[in-house]
């Protein structure tokens, strides 16, 4: 028995993504509704690769302004200050909070970059019908999906500060355009990860195995 098993799609069975009900595929249409919950079901997410690519490219584009533009504008009696993510990291590092600095660096710079490259790699592998270690690639995908929610750390900090520090005239913190871009990057990478259909990883491996 091969550990991969047969792909359900290849035997004409579709699974509902919502209620996980397996149903027989309609003979003609490529799209159908789940007979139990009514959700839209497909053999594979249609245009999954293209959609993921689009979202990924958008996220990559926005990653630039997210790091260049200020995420936080502090306006206090002591002056007006704009902080980008990197300047915040540098500030934390020089002011002694090295652990915090590292944490922010990993959460806000390394992780989004990692997600972008990982998704790009997964997409490319699917596009080129790679059969290389599908189980490893599946693990990578799981990591990407899991890690996604944590990269919003910066946005959380910013949101909390904006809400808390609002002494009119004394000190105000306003989220800068970088924060918007950064939030967009995080959301877009999550959407990209969602729209990517990991079943595609196995399809080509299956075909290659079956021959």
């Amino acid at each position: 028995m091969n550990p991969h098993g047969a792909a359900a799609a290849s035997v004409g069975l579709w699974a509902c993504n919502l209620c996980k009900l397996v149903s027989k595929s309609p003979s003609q249409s490529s799209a159908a509704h789940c007979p139990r919950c009514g959700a839209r079901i497909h053999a594979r997410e249609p245009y999954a690769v293209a959609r993921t690519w689009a979202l990924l490219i958008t996220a990559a584009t926005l990653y630039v302004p997210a790091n260049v533009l200020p995420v936080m504008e502090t306006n206090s009696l002591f002056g007006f200050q704009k902080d980008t993510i990197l300047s915040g990291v540098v500030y934390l590092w020089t002011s002694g909070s090295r652990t915090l600095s590292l944490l922010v660096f990993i959460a806000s710079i390394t992780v989004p970059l990692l997600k972008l490259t990982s998704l790009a790699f997964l997409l490319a592998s699917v596009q080129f019908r790679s059969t290389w270690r599908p189980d490893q690639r599946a693990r990578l995908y799981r990591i990407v999906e899991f890690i996604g929610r944590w990269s919003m750390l910066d946005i959380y900090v910013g949101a909390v500060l904006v809400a808390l520090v609002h002494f009119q005239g004394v000190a105000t913190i306003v989220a800068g355009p970088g924060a918007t871009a950064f939030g967009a990057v995080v959301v877009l990478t999550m959407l990209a990860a969602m729209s990517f259909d990991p079943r595609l990883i196995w399809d080509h491996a299956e075909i290659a195995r079956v021959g």
Partner: protein
Amino acid sequence: MSDEPQRPDVPEIPRAMPARGSRWPPQLIWLIPLAAVVIGGWLAVTTILERGPTITITFKTAEGIAPGKTRIKYKDVDVGIVKSVTVAEDLKTAIVSAELAKAAEKHLVDDTRFWVVHARVSGSGVSGLATLLSGSHIAVDVGHAAAKRSSFVGLETPPVIVADVPGRQFTLHARNLGSLDIGAPVYFRRLQVGQVAAYDLDADGSGVTLKIFINSPFDRYVTSDARFWHASGIDLSLDAGGVRVTTESLVSLLIGGLAFETPTQSASTAPAAPNTEFILFSTREEAARNPDRLVEKYVLVFRESVRGLAVGAPVDFRGIVIGEVASINVDYDPVKGDIVIPVEIRLYPDRLSSRYRGRPTRSPDSKELLDKMVERGFRAQLRTGNLLTGQIYVALDLFPGAAKAKLDWTKRPLELPTVPGSLQELQATMASVARKLDKIPFDTLGADLDETLRNAGSLLRRIDTEVTPDLHATLESARRTLSSAERALSPDTPLQVDAREAMREVARAAQAFRILADYLERHPEALLSGKKEDPR
């Protein structure tokens, strides 16, 4: 499908309901990255386009300037930020490099000025308090020149006048600065109309030049013959009308100030051109004096000490000040081999003729007039003005008895003849008296006196030996005579008794005579008929 029958425990698999295809063409998803690229590209392009010019400003010190923090502000609006602060290669100045907004580019011209705004406390007020908390910033004043530039020299103190304030600047010359400072107020009829913008010591150190700025619309009251004076402090005067205290305002009392006025009889009411030069007088009285337009210079040569005479000392004519001493020098007269003191004076003939304003002040025969006056004894003399301080002044007057003098019209400036001062004259008289006293032969006089005294002594001695005994005898006899006279006159002497008796007889005779007289009065016929018999 072939596996299906082998799993009888698998329940019946429901068939999915066919659905219509997606309404949206799947390619639409590419609009998202397209939009992101477009927005990102636009942001990048505008950022690059909006990047303003980078300039350098040189300051003596970069006190309070922090790269990346210090802003450049125009009218308190951010127009740039300091990017870096470095020290000049010669280690003398600090070079501040700043990035300005795109819109500021066309205002970076030759006369654009930059200065650092700190909290400042000066006489005219407190400024820049906000910088205490927010830190310093660099302020800019936009100039109007045409030439562009990108490196500037920062001002050390904020300019009082910024370019866009309407008004005019004037130049004042003063002997000293008094208590004025930059920003000191300028008053016109006790209204603050401007301030002192700058001051500088003259190159030769002989005075101070001030730049003042009069705000519009008051600048039109500065006419070409406006009079400026120091209005600092209190002007306390004591005259026949009592004590008068004059001050412009409390502010000028504290920080000084100046005031101006246009003389009421002034002919010109046209506003003065910008940067017109005026004289700053020390008091209002001095400023209000008649304008001395005509100045004549003369030289007075004195042969006496001028101790107590100072430059600026008055030159007066019978009590009217008509000029002042301009300079005092020392000169060697090779002809007489004498050291003389030529004193240069400035005369304002207008002051003498001001009652006849309108007449030509310098008539063509003034030369002749002066010659005639000198002939009549017109001379200059040094006189003591103040006995306590020993200050002296130059007096011009007629001295009919003065030695003859003639004017030499070829000399420039003209030399007026002088007579020794009154004190000098007194000294000379005293000296001549002393000289005369000196001539008296006290020695021979003494010898004569000695001999005379000796003669007198011998005379006295002779009197003592020869005259005194005779005198004694004479006195003795005189005393005897007197005592006998005394005896003769004592009350109980026979002489006295006889005299009394005689007197009584006389009284009785007088009584009888009176009776006779009475009888005759009553009986005048008795003279002829004789006394009638008493009827008794």
